[in-house]
């Protein structure tokens, strides 16, 4: 009896300790989560406050105007917004099929001894700092494009109406296309490694069942692997797109930094982050600085829209899958 009486207070103490520990753990993790929200809100507020002089001055015209003139202090964001979207699109057009291809090869087709070297090579690609991509792009990749790929594109598409406007002009080597290609290389590892990870979560029993009823490899990938992993794949693509939209240094080196919208993707252009990186240090005058911050705010909005579209697409996919 005496022993049981002694044990009871010990039990409550232990229980209280557990409860305290739990509470502490909950609050610690919650604080970490709230911190992200506070940071995001703070950045948002700071951007809006910094951008407000420019937005008040130019109003909606800030988004629709192409002019970027520090001398007369007339600023419009259309050219950098256009450049940001087009370079990211080019990057995704190339990186998504190639990245998924690599991931499928690595998980489904690759002989085991090759798997690790290729996987590590892809991850190393992600570890290269963007400035290195920029320098490589300027000194190696751009001259290569200028002397081989671009003249070829110009001559091939020259006689085709519409397409000859897209591939027009003297081959400078640097421009929208070069920036898009560099971005494609930079986002490739993100898409590949995420796709590879989610592909390897497909239960072998599903694949074996499909092979068992006589499916080809292509049919297994198309009908089993991809549908099973589409949420994860879209997540990886979005991560890559987010990186492409915001990438600064490498793009600055190879895009040509011209505040102009040209029909040709061989022509120089600019992106939002490249413009900010180029001009912020020497921006004199409040409107100039404020316009650059407003560009930052626009990038924020664009990223938000992209993420919202991705969420919406996922939601629709899930609803379709549920039926």
């Amino acid at each position, binding site marked *: 009896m005496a022993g049981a009486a002694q044990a009871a207070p010990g039990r409550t103490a232990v229980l209280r300790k557990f409860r305290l520990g739990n509470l502490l753990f909950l609050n610690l993790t919650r604080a970490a989560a709230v911190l992200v929200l506070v940071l995001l809100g703070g950045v948002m507020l700071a951007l809006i406050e910094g951008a407000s002089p420019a937005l008040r001055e130019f109003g909606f015209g800030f988004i629709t105007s192409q002019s970027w*003139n520090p*001398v007369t202090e007339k600023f419009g964001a259309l050219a950098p917004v256009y450049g940001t979207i087009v370079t990211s699109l080019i990057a995704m057009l190339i990186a998504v099929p190639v990245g998924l291809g690599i991931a499928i090869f690595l998980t489904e087709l690759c002989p085991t001894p090759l798997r690790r070297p290729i996987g590590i090579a892809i991850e190393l690609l992600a570890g290269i700092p963007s400035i290195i991509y920029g320098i490589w792009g*300027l*000194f190696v990749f751009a001259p290569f494009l200028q002397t081989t790929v671009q003249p070829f594109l110009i001559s091939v598409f020259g006689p085709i109406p519409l397409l000859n406007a897209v591939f027009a002009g003297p081959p400078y080597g640097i421009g929208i296309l070069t920036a898009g290609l560099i971005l494609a290389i930079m986002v490739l590892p993100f898409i590949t490694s995420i796709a590879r990870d989610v592909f390897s979560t497909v239960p072998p029993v599903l694949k074996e069942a499909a092979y068992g009823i006589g499916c080809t490899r292509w049919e297994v990938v198309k009908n089993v692997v991809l549908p099973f992993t589409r949420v994860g794949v879209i997540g990886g693509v979005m991560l890559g797109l987010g990186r492409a939209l915001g990438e600064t240094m490498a793009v600055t*080196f190879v895009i040509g930094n*011209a505040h102009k919208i040209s029909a040709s993707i061989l022509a120089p252009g600019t992106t939002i982050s490249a413009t900010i990186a180029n001009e912020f240090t*020497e921006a*004199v005058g409040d409107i100039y600085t404020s316009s650059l911050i407003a560009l930052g705010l626009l990038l924020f909005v664009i990223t938000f829209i992209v993420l919202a579209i991705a969420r919406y697409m996922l939601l629709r996919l899930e609803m379709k899958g549920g039926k």
Partner: protein
Amino acid sequence: MKFKSLAVAAGMAIAALAMPAAARADISGAGASFPFPVYAKWADAWNKETGKKLNYQSIGSGGGIKQIRARTVTFGATDAPLKGPELEKDGLVQFPMVMGGIVPVINVEGVKSGELVLDGPTLAKIFLGEVKTWDDAAIKALNPDLKLPSTAIAVVRRSDGSGTTFNFTDYLGKVSADWKSKVGSATAVEWPVGLGAKGNEGVAANVGQTKGSIGYVEYAYAKENNIAFARMKNKAGKVVSPEVKSFQAAAANADWSSAPGFGVILTDEPGDGSWPITAATFILMHKKPNDPAAAAEALQFFEWAFEKGGPMAEQLIYIPMPASVVKQVRDAWSAITGADGKPLAIAK
């Protein structure tokens, strides 16, 4: 035990952070990136000679102006001089420290360095996109003996805001009414044509590898990278080469007393030997500094640089100020005073 050692480590880290504040660098400056190499070299040599420290941050002219206005640094540095009323408003003194030249660099097949001659109006037309090929009549007229290819001209210019761009566009505005009305001059402008490259090194690299290109860089970059440059026809109608002699001629021929705070832009100066696109870089200081002791030391440093820094500057391909200008700068220093109203600079 673990916690204790952690606490000790943290304490040491904090102490290490606090140390520089206690024994802080005596003088701090911030601003233009163009003179950074020479300021850094001077600061190093001065430190060895006197034991005093100077910390210069190359954050760009715009940043330098902002910092000195906010009084967070002892001196600011800018490539584009402030105008009289702006200096008055903030109670600033401005003086030139060192000079450099801006040269057109080219990459044209069959044309060697220094062979091509350009004049201001033609240069402006090239950068306006009106002269499109190297065998254009305007270029041919200046170079009757050169065999020029029919290659398209690829214009390369700075993408970042820059004092180099400020001086270059100022020159184009002086020699071309079209340029003045259509583009104007500033540290960054709305370029009608061309590729933007970041920094002098970016322009140098792009011109080096793009056939048929023309750009503009600080003289030091053209010389160090061995890029072909063009000679220029100056205001007097004489063809001059970019070299220390022609840059100094431009400075000597300038009328420094004509603008408050020596705010003279050295482009398109008169004189037979003057290089037309010469540029000075300026120092900004408060007339009534918050920390007179630091300001006095900064003035000692500038005095030392004027006296002994010349050869070091020339090694780095900067051009020291002519003696006549240095004399005027010393006079201007008397406006910088301590709390007692006495000048901080030691009279020479």
